[in-house]
């Protein structure tokens, strides 16, 4: 796993000379110059491409501190003078201050993260370490639910949650996570648990530890990387989630950030792009921070399991 984190070291290990070793000194120098030029060009290309990729984001950031009239006149990135009024305007443009929506999103995300960490790790322990009848059958069922489109269950879920009077609460968003419905993370943790040497928990069992203690005191501490990956992806998915929040949250009091932003677009239309961009930037900051500090786990998570 560490090889992913330290790719640049490989460069030094590669021999630069040709296998025959008969190349003249001059020839080697020419080749070295040529390869330096080639790699310089490659880097220039990659940097330029990365810049084009990120340009829309940088442009949105720049536009968020420009007066509305200038957004459409200057495609450049450097604002002539920085003006934060878009942020104050956007913050109070809707019924509630934007902090309300941030708080709502934070509650939902926190509930989802905690729910997934606890419920998925419990289920994963059973699949990875316990022997019971029908284990393979239930494991197969679990795998099948990973690919199930939410659309197949959303209508009856809506009916059920509205009978329970849970619409316009965060329960329809959080309770399913407490019940391990993100089977994907069960799978991730089963894979991880299987990699932990059995000798460790067997030894603990000899010392008289039960399964609950082994789960809590041995497996969980060792599974921190898998737990971190789960927490990070749950955070990003729940923060960006739009479909289910759109369906279950219809009162402005309960709006999360994505729903608030969407309402903002619809209410102001094209007139106040600056304020809209400012709040969009605000909404992206948490994901960006998670990306910045959780990169190692993100890359590992995608590389081993193929999630987005």
């Amino acid at each position, binding site marked *: 796993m560490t090889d992913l984190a330290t790719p640049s070291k490989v460069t030094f290990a590669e021999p630069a000379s040709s296998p025959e070793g008969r190349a003249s000194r001059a020839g080697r120098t020419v080749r070295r110059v040529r390869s330096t030029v080639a790699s310089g060009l490659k880097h220039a290309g990659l940097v330029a491409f990365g810049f084009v990729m990120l340009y829309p*984001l940088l442009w949105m950031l720049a536009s968020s501190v420009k007066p509305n009239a200038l957004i459409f006149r200057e495609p450049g990135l450097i604002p002539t003078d920085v003006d934060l009024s878009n942020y104050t305007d956007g913050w109070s443009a809707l019924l509630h201050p934007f902090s309300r929506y941030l708080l709502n999103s934070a509650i939902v995300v926190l509930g989802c993260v905690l729910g997934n960490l606890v*419920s998925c790790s419990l289920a994963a322990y059973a699949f990875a370490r316990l022997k*019971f009848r029908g284990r393979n059958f239930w494991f197969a069922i679990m795998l099948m639910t990973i690919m199930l489109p939410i*659309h197949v*269950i959303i209508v009856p879920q809506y*009916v059920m949650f509205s009978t329970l009077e849970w619409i316009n609460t965060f329960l329809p968003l959080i309770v399913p996570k407490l019940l391990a419905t993100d089977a994907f993370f069960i799978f991730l943790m089963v894979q991880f648990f299987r990699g932990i040497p059995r000798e460790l928990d067997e030894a603990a069992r*000899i010392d008289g530890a039960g399964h609950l203690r082994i789960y809590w005191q041995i497996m969980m501490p060792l599974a921190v990387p898998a737990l971190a990956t789960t927490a990070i992806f749950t955070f990003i998915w729940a923060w960006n989630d739009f479909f289910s929040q759109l369906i279950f949250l219809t009162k402005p009091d309960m709006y999360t950030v994505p729903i608030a932003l969407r309402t903002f677009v619809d209410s102001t239309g094209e007139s106040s792009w600056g304020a809209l*961009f400012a709040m969009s930037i605000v909404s992206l900051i948490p994901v960006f921070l998670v990306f910045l500090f959780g990169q190692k786990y993100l890359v590992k998570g995608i590389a081993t399991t193929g999630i987005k």
Partner: protein
Amino acid sequence: MSSVIQEVASTRRAAGERRKGDGRMAALFLAPWFAGLFLITAGPMAASLYLSFTDYDLLSSPTWVGLDNYVRMFEDPRLIQSLKVTFTYVFVSVPLQLAAALALALVLDKGMRGLAVYRSVYYLPSLLGGSVAIAILWRQIFGADGLVNQVLAFFGIEGTGWVSHPDYALNTLIILNVWTFGAPMVIFLAGLRQIPRMYYEAASIDGAGRLRQFWSITVPMLTPIVFFNLVLQLINAFQNFTQAFVVSGGNGGPADSTLLYTLYLYRKGFADLDMGYASAMAWFLLLIIGGMTLVNFLASKYWVHYDD
């Protein structure tokens, strides 16, 4: 010491196998998952299948109409349109996205300097791409006086309102999906890393050039990863919703040109409250995705290379 533990552990394990197993413990660990499976997933699935044979508007109780909803689907021009839009979207954007991901992964995989930085930069859009904020940004970028047209104007080309033109609106969504090529790219990078270096060494001793090595080693060794990415991204793309919803203002316009299947399903179920019809649509979607994945697996026999 450790060998003693191993020995004791293996005898314990043998003893454990003779015992009845951990049925009761498993029930405890799996309790949340079972509750979720039956209450949140399987129950609603069954209910949704039932509702798909009924006429149901949430207010009055469902009335049985047999196959009516399914028959109606094939006479519904908007549904046909949404299928056309969705298939175009999926089968244009996914190959482009994977091609970009593979190309970048091949360029980056040389243990080059700064690989981690490039990987992060290219990966960032994958994390943000599903958010409402980016959809809002896209709506502006491809608007009549948006960023794209400003850049085109710089080169003396007169653009149009891309998102408000029925011929181009879907293309903006396709570009957005291609923009998120970072996640499959990271998977490709991990796959490339797993190709044993000695294959290349052996080939170059046998006199194979770089191009030959690419076609005879890299390509076949990478086909399982291509297959994996293809299956995953196709399933994802069929379910995309947020971007089409926000860019089109929630109605799939202009002229239904961005009416993704999921968007139409949402409108039918939660705007028109035609929930029987929406349920039938959901099951048809499941059928499409399941069928496509099956075809993918069957076809993989002919082009995916498995080493052992």
